């Protein structure tokens, strides 16, 4: 599903224009990004929680150079699914 389709659907549901919905959508995504960039985690209810972690410097095999390389530390986003979505998805799959 593309962003346009999502926006159209949400605009219908919320009784807003598509432009307004898009504005909401963009500031929502931007807000989440800024939160993560400023080291703050959050939870989207029903979906899961996000937080950032520092992956420390480590050695790893680089298949292109065919030898070990030192990978520098990196800040990465972690996501953990919420229990509700876990249940929903698994009961759907087990049917």
């Amino acid at each position, binding site marked *: 599903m593309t962003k346009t389709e999502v926006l159209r659907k949400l605009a219908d549901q*919320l009784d807003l224009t598509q432009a307004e919905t898009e*504005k909401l959508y963009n500031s929502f995504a*931007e807000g989440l990004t800024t939160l993560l960039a400023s080291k703050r*985690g959050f939870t989207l209810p029903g979906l899961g929680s996000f937080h950032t972690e520092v992956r420390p410097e480590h050695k790893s095999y680089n298949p292109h*150079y065919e030898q070990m390389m*030192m990978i520098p530390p990196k800040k990465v986003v972690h*996501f953990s699914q919420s229990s509700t*979505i876990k249940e929903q998805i698994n009961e759907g799959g087990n049917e």
Partner: protein
Amino acid sequence: MSNKVTYNEIIEALSRAAGFSKNNSEAFAKALITEIKEELQKNGKASITNFGSFKVKDVAERQGQNPQTGEPITIPAHKRVTFTPYKALREEVNTKYAHLESKLIGEKKEKSVSQVEDKTEPAESETPDIELDEVVEEEPKAFQRKERVRGNNTGLIMVAVLVLVIVALVSAWFLTRTDEVEQMAGIESAQTAQQPETSGESEMEESENDLDNRVDELVAEEERLRKQEEERLARLEAAREDQPQAEATDASPMEIYRVQQDEWYWVISRKMYGKAQFWPLIFQQNFSKDRHPDSLEITTNLQVPALVGTAENPTKEDYRKLSSASALVSLAYKNFGRNDKAEEYARFAKKWERLGS
């Protein structure tokens, strides 16, 4: 955790940023989340533009342990939602560490970059003595590297002895010549011009006989090395004539780079241009049919074409060159049966082409 933001705070921030009422914002967030959930259940995939994508993954059954009792248990196969941040988010989050680069661990010593102006052929017309010295200084090192990759000093010592002997030889020759000019002249004309050393030595005392033998050996060795060098040059020349694009770029200034151990095109490109992505240029410049893009012989001399612009700010011409070079790399990969890589570089070629037009 203390630095977690509550959902309410998010909604508040959203209503402030977008200029809508809190009710509206909350309704929107809820609708969006529901939308994503529905999407995930229907297609197993969903995304938030500029943020990241969610995907439902199958997790296979595996053996686990009850963390409290240590009892082995079987975790049944199930599904889970994974999240992949998009590039924008990844970079935004990682800005603090963005300047760091991964580096090779095996790097022991500074790799010397021998940068010479473009002259693939050493001037044949120069005096033989000087040329001989050049060959002696360059080739045995290469030879040593090829034969014994581990640092073995015997080769180096041999080179030193060789050079010393040549110096001694030449001076001795001059000495004898000045002493007995008449005699020498007669013998020299009799001898072949190829081996003036032996002619000089034969006039010396018998005690120098063993030295003479060694000199002969060394001269033979030199001859061999020189022949190798000439062959290599001829090969290089031929390879260059095979490649029409190379001739087109011949006009631009070029640098010669001698490949060291554990170096690939990428490493060299990063060293010479500051950007690893530009390695197809070097590959193209030194192209020949049997060259594998992923391997390089130690001590090969590579020509490194110069950019018209700079690495940070390449011109359109550079992009065009990169495009054709990448296409060549793609072809080479295909020849070696690496279709995945071939496709990757075909894509690169298209990308560069777009940037170049």
